[in-house]
């Protein structure tokens, strides 16, 4: 670390004004850093504070109840179906998107030619910013009919897994469709972050592997993956986080129902975020509070996922170009 040697060097040369400037600048930047902690704490505090009224009024079991009627008399609501839909759709989306996303990153950074790779990188960057509402619109108007074939096929051939068994022969706004759209949505994020870390792999490592006679795949396995693994985990984490909290695309695609249904291709399904968006403007006071309570659960859920992922990354030594 070079910084340790510099703290002593500032004092002798330029005197007090420099020290003041240094102190002010470090103070301001530390304040900006602290703001992150303040915001996180404030989010938790405000959401807890505003969930309490509805939780006190709720006559159902908040965790298992599969209905949503907080403004009724008596007030009954619970997150059972929401939790199920959110977790299942996000996990399916991540399972689909992470291998493909890492494949794209490898293709762009190692397999494609130099000229091709920079324009492909630009395209994935661009697609990372396609707004979720546009994916929702596309999911409704294109993928809804376009994915029917694969859903019918899944029903016919792997229907015995229950997951793809469609008892109604009705292929429409289902949790499966939402998961597909989610996986496409998080794909650019996973790919872009993975590409960043793959590009940071020191060329010497890759060249050394190739010079020893490794095939390209062996080079990827021996030089790229060990270096890029924490970054790839962080890519998957970003993807999962985005899938868990994705709102508008899911709200457009699902035909919201309050039931736990393992038959993923049947119409229905619901998630925390979609439910909040759909119910927000018609909710009364208790209704708003109940939605905030479900938002609090979503917040805790994403927080937990991120903390676990972060822990996995922290266990690996971090090394960057600067050190």
């Amino acid at each position, binding site marked *: 670390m*070079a*910084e340790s*040697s510099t703290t002593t060097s*500032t004092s002798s*040369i*330029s005197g007090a004004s420099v020290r003041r400037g*240094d102190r002010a*600048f470090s103070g301001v*930047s*530390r304040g*900006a*850093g602290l*703001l*992150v*902690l303040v915001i*996180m704490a*404030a989010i938790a505090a405000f*959401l807890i*504070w505003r969930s309490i009224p509805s939780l006190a009024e709720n006559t159902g079991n908040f965790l298992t109840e599969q209905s949503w009627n907080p403004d009724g008399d008596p007030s009954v609501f619970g997150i059972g179906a929401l939790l199920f839909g959110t977790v299942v759709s996000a996990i399916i989306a991540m399972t689909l998107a992470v291998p493909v996303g890492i*494949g*794209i990153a490898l293709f762009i950074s190692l*397999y494609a030619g130099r000229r091709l790779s920079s324009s*492909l990188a630009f395209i994935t960057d661009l*697609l*990372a910013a*396609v*707004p979720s*509402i546009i994916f*929702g*619109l*596309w999911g409704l108007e*294109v*993928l809804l009919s376009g994915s029917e074939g*694969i859903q019918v096929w899944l029903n016919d*051939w792997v229907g015995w897994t229950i997951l793809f068994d469609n008892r109604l022969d009705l292929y429409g706004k289902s949790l499966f469709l939402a998961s597909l759209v989610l996986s*496409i949505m998080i*794909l650019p994020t996973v*790919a872009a972050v993975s590409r960043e870390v793959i590009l940071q792999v020191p060329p010497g490592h890759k060249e050394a592997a190739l010079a*020893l006679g490794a*095939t*390209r795949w062996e080079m990827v396995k021996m030089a790229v993956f060990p270096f890029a693994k924490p970054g790839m985990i962080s890519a998957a*984490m*970003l993807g999962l*986080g985005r899938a*868990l*909290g994705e*709102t508008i695309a899911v709200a457009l695609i699902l035909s919201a129902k309050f039931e736990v249904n393992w038959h993923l291709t049947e119409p229905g399904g619901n998630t925390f975020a979609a439910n*909040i*968006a759909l119910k*927000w*403007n018609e909710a009364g006071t208790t209704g708003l509070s109940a939605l*905030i309570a479900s*938002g609090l659960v979503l*917040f805790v859920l*994403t*927080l937990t*996922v*991120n*903390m676990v992922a972060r822990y996995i990354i922290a266990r690996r030594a971090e090394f960057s170009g*600067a050190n």
Partner: protein
Amino acid sequence: MATTTMPTRSQPSSLIGGQLPRWATPTVGASAVAAAFALNLTTGLAGWFGTAIVAALVFLVIQSIWSFRVEGRRHAVDRLATTLVYSTFVAAIVPLVSVLFTVLVKGLAVMSWAFLTDSMRNVSPRAEGGGVGHAIVGTLQQVGIAAAFAVPVGILAAIYLVEYGRGRLAKVISFFVDVMTGIPSIVAGLFIFTAFVLGLGLERSGFAAALALAILMLPVIIRTTEEMLKIVPNDLREASYALGVPKFRTILKVVLPTALAGIVTGAMLSVARVAGETAPLLLTTFLTQSYNYNPLEGPQASLPLFIWDQITSGTSASVGRAWGGALVLITIVMLFYITAKLLAARFAPKG
């Protein structure tokens, strides 16, 4: 890397070893597609999607077996991996291109100068006409305010983490920046609603929406800036220190300019990302069908909310307008990207 072990596997007789002929890949590919179509007819595998998957699988199997027999295990695995990497790219590009193509085609159908400048004032959902002018104004203002908050704070926080932060506090902040990256956009909206509307008793407004967007931008900017600052070589910092330049000047005059291209790109990317966020806006603003140039007061439209409103209206005229709005939104996002890339290319320090 002082000692390296040579691969112990005995080499084939020739220096290069067995190799598949050049025509191997196209031949295997063609036969795989043929096999997939044959399976398509016999099993009733529906759609081009399933056919493509089967073709890819057949290709993988044939190529692997052939390569294994001629070239050996290592090269067979290498070919397998190469094919998989290529096919992931194809599998991903297809839906992504489809999204852009659909938006372009359906958006251009309603596009006109009037669509860009008109508002939805006095236009019923069923009627043709109307426009997104009011929504463009709202989106630009809200995103601008969000960036004005998030960019300086984010860059400063990143500077703290990379240049100053040592010990426990920096670790905790860095940890929570990562955690904050995963905050769902709707939670940011809920937070601003509870703090701003319920807590302070203020009206829902464009400004509240901007605050929610700023919360979403902040961790993205911190992380990208952090990455860029870390890449700046320590040699530059040490050279500056050796010339007697104090630390804060070194950061401002040496480190930041070196990393500027990356920082600007990161900021623009985060702007582009939040420009399309719908969920927080849904909770923190009310939609209006008229122009409102004041983000501090009254309901304000924005492109994502406009699109949401038009889809949920559900008439053919309004869904057409939704696609038009989608095209405008994507174009704005794209402008941010291209500007970011141009800036990055222009100001990137060479060498």
